[in-house]
């Protein structure tokens, strides 16, 4: 029997990045907030301290900070004619767990999406005609514009202290920044990070070919910084243990370093860790959320009543929580009807390797998670897609984030898979190789979606999430073109050998690509093809807000988190300024 707890104003499902931000904004507005986080509490001190934290086997290979897949796996198949099977070991993507969520062990690459992303369907049809996109694509507009997003991006970047160089301040182009970005109100909070060797070589080569290199915007900071919440961040030491690790130096922006201590000092906030939310409870007419049911770490079940529910449990978990709670209509790829789980997308990445002679020391271990130099010339609609017959694009750059040797020991083609030849190649090339990264968009397609698995259950006896995904033809063509363009840059970088690696089908869960899983609770202005309105409020249950990369109608070329944070601030503003005064739908249906 579940114990019913005293009611609260707001319950947060998940206390990761989104949960922390929303907790802060809503306690600030005077509300009592209960944060439910399934994982452990964890803090910079003592949990992320070196030397313990610098353990590649434990954190990168055994994935110590990730969602416990022995209790909560996800099943996967490439197409709906196959039987989905559990991902028995995480590899392709790594959902986080514990206080702070995946934003503890992210890399900090912090980019804004563009107007041509937010209004992708409209602008693509305007420029290339209605028949340009492949028939299987379900690209749609977001219901927001870059101009509307600007102040929220700005606020989020100042919270994190992002290190970068503006390319367009209020419509005025600024040398050294990204010339393709939409206007921003002001400079980045901190200047760009120092540029590593390989990135400098990339910059020179890209510029010589007429492209526009700029420093990757980084949430690992170039200098000490005090954010508007009064939190002090420190300079990044380029330790090379960033993605998959907590930062020992207070240099990586994470909930712990930018906001959590402030939230936890607020009397109106209550944190419960080890609290696994099973479902959002609804009124009999299913139009109102009454709170949530969760199980604590010792196995006892509780009902937490709340007037407002904020679902910020990471993209994939958000989708599953709606499905488990019976909120909205699950997507059916056959009929095309239903919206929950629709438009699952990912990131279409590929790489080009360059091998150098032994005089060139790359020192790959001297890196930060987000140091490096990139170009946006092939991002989004920054180039003419007419001749290429695909939509979307990629940023390309030298953004290596580490030289940890179990994960990183590049060898050129022709190297034996094992034996003396392998070992000598590893010794020869470890310090003399570069990988260029091609970080491409992922278009939502009719056949790719998320739903509940009919067979496999989690440790609480609930169906697990089922993922059906393969790269659409459009994205394979994009990857091929972008990888060819990157080859040309790589050849201008003075190596001995250049090796391409365009993305191929089938998508496989056995190789890490990114944790940029998107869609499934898509935002938009039309309830027939979206789950939440442009303020991230559920169309079905107005006292529920669903926030995360699950809101993306399709995924853009850039990493998601700047946009997740900006959308969260935008939603919080709508809640505080409008919803709290008049609790009901913020957008009429």
């Amino acid at each position: 029997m579940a114990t019913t707890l005293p009611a609260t104003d707001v319950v947060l499902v998940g206390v990761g990045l989104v949960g922390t931000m929303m907790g802060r904004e809503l306690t600030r507005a005077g509300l009592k907030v209960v944060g439910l986080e399934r994982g452990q509490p964890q803090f910079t001190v003592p949990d992320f301290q070196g030397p313990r934290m610098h353990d590649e086997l434990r954190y990168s290979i055994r994935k110590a900070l990730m969602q416990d897949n022995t209790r909560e796996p996800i099943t996967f198949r490439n197409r709906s004619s196959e039987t989905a099977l559990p991902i028995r070991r995480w590899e392709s993507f790594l959902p986080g767990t514990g206080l702070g969520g995946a934003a503890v062990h992210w890399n900090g690459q912090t980019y804004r999406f563009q107007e041509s992303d937010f209004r992708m369907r409209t602008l693509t049809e305007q420029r290339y005609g209605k028949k340009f996109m492949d028939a299987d694509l379900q690209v749609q507009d977001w219901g927001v514009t870059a101009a509307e997003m600007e102040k929220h991006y700005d606020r989020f970047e100042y919270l994190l202290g992002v290190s970068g160089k503006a390319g367009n301040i209020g419509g005025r182009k600024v040398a050294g920044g990204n010339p393709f970005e939409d206007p921003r109100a002001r400079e980045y909070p901190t200047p760009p990070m120092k540029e590593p060797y390989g990135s400098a070589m990339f910059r020179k080569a890209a510029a010589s070919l007429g492209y526009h290199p700029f420093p990757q915007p980084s949430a690992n900071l170039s200098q000490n910084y005090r954010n508007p919440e009064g939190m002090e961040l420190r300079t990044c030491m380029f330790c090379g243990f960033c993605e998959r690790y907590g930062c020992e130096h207070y240099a990586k922006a994470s909930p712990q370093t930018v906001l959590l201590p402030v939230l936890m000092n607020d009397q109106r906030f209550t944190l419960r860790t080890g609290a696994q939310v099973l479902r959002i409870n609804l009124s009999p007419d299913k139009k109102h959320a009454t709170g949530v049911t969760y199980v604590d770490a010792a196995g006892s079940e509780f009902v937490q009543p709340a007037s407002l529910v904020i679902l910020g449990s990471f993209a994939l978990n958000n989708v599953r929580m709606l499905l488990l709670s019976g909120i909205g209509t699950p997507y059916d790829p056959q009929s095309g009807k239903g919206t929950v789980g629709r438009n699952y997308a990912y990131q279409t990445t590929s790489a080009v390797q360059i091998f150098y002679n032994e005089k060139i020391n790359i020192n790959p271990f001297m890196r930060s998670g987000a140091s490096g130099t990139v170009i946006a010339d092939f991002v989004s609609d920054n180039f003419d897609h007419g001749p290429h017959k695909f939509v979307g694009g990629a940023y390309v750059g030298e953004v290596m984030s580490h030289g940890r040797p179990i994960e990183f020991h590049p060898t050129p083609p022709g190297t034996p898979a094992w034996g003396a030849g392998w070992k000598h190649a590893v010794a020869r090339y470890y310090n003399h190789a570069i990988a260029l990264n091609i970080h491409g968009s992922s278009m939502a397609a009719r056949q790719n979606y998320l739903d509940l698995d009919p067979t496999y259950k989690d440790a609480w006896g609930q169906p697990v999430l089922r993922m059906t995904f393969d790269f659409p033809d459009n994205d394979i063509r994009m990857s091929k073109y972008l990888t060819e363009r990157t080859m040309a840059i790589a050849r201008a970088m003075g190596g001995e050998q250049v090796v391409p690696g365009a993305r191929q089908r089938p998508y496989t869960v056995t190789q890490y690509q990114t944790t940029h899983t998107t869609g499934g609770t898509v935002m938009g202005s039309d309830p027939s093809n979206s789950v939440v309105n442009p303020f991230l409020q559920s169309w079905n249950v107005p006292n529920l807000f669903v926030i995360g990369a699950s809101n993306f109608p399709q995924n853009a070329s850039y990493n998601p988190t700047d946009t997740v944070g900006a959308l969260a601030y935008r939603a919080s503003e709508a809640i505080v300024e409008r919803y709290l005064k008049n609790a009901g739908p913020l957008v009429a249906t």
Partner: protein
Amino acid sequence: MGSQPGPANGQMRFFNPGEAAFVRAAVARLIPSDELPGAIEAGVDQFIDIQLGGAWGAGERLFRGGPWHPGSPSQGYQLPFTPAELFRNALRAIASDVELKGKGPFEHWHAKDQDAYLTELQKGTRDLGGVPSNVFFESLWGLTVEGFLCDPVYGGNRGMVSWKMIGFPGAYANYYHLIDQHGIAFTRAPMSLADNGRGEVMLHPDIPAQPMAKGQ
């Protein structure tokens, strides 16, 4: 750098003597010792033994719920075996296979024959007690690479031989002042998690170690 003397193997926790002998001989071929150190100097066989005898061997972070289907390669590992079970079954099948060949124990074979046998395991899918041979090979190779390149606290990469070989400085890392000295030869000896010579702990004076929620 010359290869270091082979370690006097401690007591194995997981492998029986026959298994230990095979694994030692196999990893000695997977990463042979020559003028550069190999798996034996790095203690890879002992690393694998420790891993299989501990939580990893017992299926740490491996979802083990059924039903089981072979699946497609893009769905990844789908066998019901823990790593410990996988090794045990495969090594038992390999032992009888080796015996049938009548050429004496694997560890006494010529290197060329050992390589040919390992290649057969790698490229084939022959059933080894329920484990396709290529799956066993991949598991063995994965653990071998880990044991060669991991931090020595795990019992592999003894003396940091592989890190010295490739020039990886290890667990202690602060390159703020070096990152813009492009192409410098970095020659500091590597450091392991275990040999904290500097006693450095980054403590932030303004933030309490474990902020406690003030609410209820």
